[in-house]
């Protein structure tokens, strides 16, 4: 899987290596590091993720059967209370402090990684014979974790406190029906796309500063 992932990456470094470096917490937190590099890295990764989000969503829907797989399916009314929505008014977003903006994105991707894990497990039950879907979900989760690491590096560089890693999912309904699982998978993959889009904007703004 890692090889496949690595092949997709357009930046020169092999992906597993990159991800490892991103995941590792900065060892020398005392020494102030220039935030430009981690911002740039995070921005690159976010851009790359952005290219794959619609594919992930389409692949996901394709395997869930009608009406999910019907062309043009959209159900904005479906939401997950455990997953913050990426939708925000531009004014509010723009007025946010860097730290706050970063913190929200960081929280969202933390939730997304956990949710993507849950969706991956759900789909292992529902679509055990669809390795493509399962691989894409796994890859999305790894990328989300990678971005999370990058954001931590930025926050460290900026001297911001890193919010503690918390259990966003809480008590998962293990007895959720298949339909509920399909729906929550849809919401997660959809929000993953939205949050990636927002992260690109966040990082672009940060980069510009």
């Amino acid at each position, binding site marked *: 899987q890692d090889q496949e992932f690595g092949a997709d990456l357009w930046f020169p470094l092999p992906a597993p290596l990159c991800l490892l470096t991103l995941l590792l917490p900065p060892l020398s937190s005392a020494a102030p590091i220039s935030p430009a590099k981690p911002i740039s890295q995070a921005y690159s990764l976010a851009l790359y993720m952005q290219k794959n989000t619609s594919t992930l969503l389409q692949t996901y829907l394709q395997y*869930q059967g009608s*009406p999910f797989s*019907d062309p043009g399916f959209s159900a904005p009314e479906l939401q997950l209370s455990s997953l913050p929505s990426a939708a925000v008014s531009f004014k509010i977003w723009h007025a946010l402090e860097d730290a706050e903006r970063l913190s929200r994105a960081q929280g969202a991707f933390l939730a997304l990684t956990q949710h993507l894990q849950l969706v991956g497990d759900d789909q292992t039950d529902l679509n*055990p014979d*669809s390795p493509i879907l399962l691989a894409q979900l796994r890859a999305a989760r790894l990328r989300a974790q990678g971005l999370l690491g990058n954001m931590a590096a930025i926050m460290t560089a900026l001297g911001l406190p890193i919010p503690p890693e918390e259990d966003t999912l809480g008590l998962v309904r293990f007895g959720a029906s298949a*339909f509920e699982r399909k729906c929550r998978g849809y919401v997660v993959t959809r929000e993953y796309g939205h949050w990636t889009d927002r992260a690109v904007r966040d990082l672009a703004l940060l980069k510009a500063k």
Partner: protein
Amino acid sequence: MDIYFCLRQPLEMVDSKRMKTSSNFQWLLSSFILLCLMNQVNSQKKGAPHDLKCITNNLKVWDCSWKAPSGRDTLYEVCIENRFNSCYRSEKTNTKIPALLPGDHEISINPIHNHSSISKFILNEENISLIPDTPEILNLTADFSTSALHIKWNDKGSAFPHHSNVTWQIEILRKKKMEIVTLMTHNTTLNGKDTLHHWSWTSDMPLECVTHYVRMRCYIDDLHFSGHKEWSDWSPVKNISWSPDYQPKVFPEDKVVLVGSDVTVCCVIQEKVILAQFGKEKCSLIHLDGENVAIKIYNISVSPTSGTNVVFTTDTNLVGTVIFAGYPPDIPQKLNCETRDLKEIICTWNPGRPTGLLGPHNTSYTLFESFSGKNVTFKRAEDPADISYQLFFQMIPNWEIYNFTLNARNPLGQSESTILVNITKRAVYPHTPTSFKVKDTNSTAVSLSWYLQGNFAKMHLLCQVEITKSNSVQELRNVTVKGVEDSSYFVVVGKLSPYTNYTFRIRCSTETFWKWSSWTIEKQHLTTEAIPSKGPDTWREWSSDGKNLIIYWKPLPINEANGRILSYNVSCSSDEETQSLSEIPDRQHKAEIQLDKNDYIISVVAKNSVGSSPPSKIASMEIPNEDDLKIEQAVGMGNGIFLSWNYDPNMTCDYVIKWCNSSRPGPCLMDWKKVPSNSTEAVIESDQFRPGVRYNFFLYGCRNQGYQLLRSIMGYIEELAPIVAPNFTVEDTSADSILVKWEDIPVEELRGFLRGYLFYFGKGERGTSKMRGLGPETGHSDIKVKNITDISQKTLKIADLQGKTSYRLVLRAYTDGGIGPEKSMYVVTKENSVGLIIAILIPVAVAVIVGVVTSILCYRKREWIKETFYPDIPNPENCKALQFQKSVCEGNSALTLEMNPCTPNNVEVLETRTVVPKIEDTEIVSPVAEHPEDSSEAEPENHVVVSYCPPIIEEEIPNPVADEAGGTSQVIYIDVQSMYQPQAKPEEQENDPVGGSGYKPQMHLPVSSPVEDGTAEDDLDDTAGYRPQANVSTWHLVSPDSPRSTDSNSEVVSFGSPCSINSRQFLLPPKDEDSPKSTGGGWSFTNFFQNKPND
């Protein structure tokens, strides 16, 4: 008493049922009358109890009630008037009495405070109604997951004295409107005790979506009770409902259903549902209580992997559920259990039809061994693409027979398959042997070793060795070895050929064969060398000069060489000396030794690294043959030649056939072949044999290592047609014959045994196409063929030819292989001179003889001829030749012969003229003598052919009209008068011969008119060529030989006839003067003898 009757009535009615049908009408009539009477009585006695009715609910007590006048508190005494005479008091209008025995009982009801009337009734069990107590549902529960309702109630059977059948009716109702869903019956038996009953019902509609109500009633069918039996009242209704969350929900959740079944899906919701979808299909809504809706899906088809979604859409929400439609597991197919190492049993199977269910609904398999009670469960592989359905079961020590049951289960059902195996006897499929090695033992044996995993300690292994020789000959050998546990095995494989490349591989099974293991990988092995088993095949020839003996031998075949031949040793030994040549390298297969003509024994030995072969021996000298050998001929079969000979007991060693190409120089040895001494035939085959080449074969017989020539054969493998034609020359030519000689064709070009020549000859010249193709196939009829089968003949004489004629000669040779090409030659025969001379002389001689004879005859008969044809007086009357015409001309004139039209005018003209000639006639003696020039001059004009038509000449009509015909009429004049012209103007003619040719008769004829003269002059030129007087010769051209005769048939008829009007001749020809003129003309017999007298 009235009541008695009333009560009695129905009893009678019951009885009357047994009556015959014919009395029914009578009975009805009487009952009607009785009823009327009864009403009358009742109306008279209104104060008395009436209408007694009794029911029972337990068959022990009867509850009787009656009607009485209301408004008064009365105490009633009810007495059963039987032998016990028991009475009961009641303040109400009903009372309970113990059940009475079957039969009529008189009941009296006596209102105590009202003595007015005592009512008496006849009571019978048959009039009692059995109405059971209303049942009560003790407990109604629901299993929402399965949509099942469970009902529990008590039958209160202890109340009944004896066993009875009870039928329960259970009614299910739905929705607040209490719509009946179903009504079902349930039969039980009362057994004298209170019994709790359970009953379940599964709803098609999920119970969560709508409230379900249940009620029941019963009917006791007691066989001992003869009265009415009625249904009890309905029990109080019980309901079941689901308390919904705030969240909308869809039911059933994740339901697994069988393909083809019907499913109802419902939605508990507070909003209005606008759309329901099953997969891609829109469904019609069934409205339940509130906003709850349901849909019904019929004949569901198999779902995709993640199930089929059912989605309800509202304005603001999307809810749904997933249905998994599939099949129960198929019976596991091809269940097979075997062991590879006698430690673990592997059971494999084929799952059969796919269930269409995956993930948590996938089929689970359990393998259960019934003797040991152990089981193992199938664990699905991580990768769903690589599913091999197999389970491993650890073998139990010393346990041979296993009874396996494989159970397949999924939410829709289960199935199983069983197998009983004797694992050591019928189920050992060993692993593929490993570490397979081959080692040399000796030149004909090797040892094989391999390792086989498995516990075979208590059995024997049967292994199969496949031995493949280098030339791809395969051999299988079975070996049995004693089994051990996880160990190596050794076997020795013998009977191999030395120095041979072998390929070995091995596979094993147990002695009680079930399955071979897979073959091991192949191992190649070359066996070690051994000494050559035989000496080389040897032959010898003396060199051309006879001084050296050349010894030939053939390389040993690989199976006799037993190794790589390094060298050969050759030795020649006689009684006196021994010569030897040693270490002749392998490449060389002949040796030359200078020997005298003594008898030597030559021995040849082949050597390899192990040792030398036994020697091959051959005597240097041939055994002389007593008989003279005849060279035989033989023809082969295309690829070889067959030779056979008679058995000769003297030949003890073998026979040798050697052969060579007869046309090659040097010692005759191309190859040889040895045949055992007991054979009498051999087929000689060689790649070197070519068709059309002559080979010499020599058959030798062997005796004490010496060879004797027995037969000499000349042969072809296949005969072909000669490649060239024989050269031939013409030795001699005469006028009628040709002698041809030819040469032999060389053997190389003959390409077969010569069988003969074909000689073709026919007329023909060089370059003419007629003779191009010669031969039997061309089929020219004028071409002659000679088949010369005597091949010793070298000349051929062709006779009966024509002289001075060109002939084409062709010669071809032929063999049994066909006819060779042709060689041709053109020959012209000589001229035949004698024949030519004879051909000229004979006609000349004949002509002379005929001439002489004719002359003699004419001379002798000249007087008669003259008398006949030319009498002295030319009187036509005397003319014998003209006598026959007399009668014809008599009518018109005695002098002319006329044919119709014959005009008297003509006669007149001629008559006048006849006078003149008569005078002149005598004067003309011999015009030939007098006018030789004339005649000669006239001669060329004599040939002019004048043709004219015989017009009717109207001379008397001097009309210019006649001018038109003048041309022709004048001709007549000219024609007639010209005869006299010479007489009239002989001088003129002489002087002016030219004018003689263009004569003017009009000048001399008195009858001619001036007009005619003019016309005659005008026409002079036209008639210039006409000289009838000069054409005297034509007068007598009576003969058909005359050239005139060919002009026309009409003229032939009239020609020469004196009467003919067409005739240009004079009717009376001049006697003498004209004849000489005619002599100057062409050939004529008349002239011939007429001239004669003159001569």
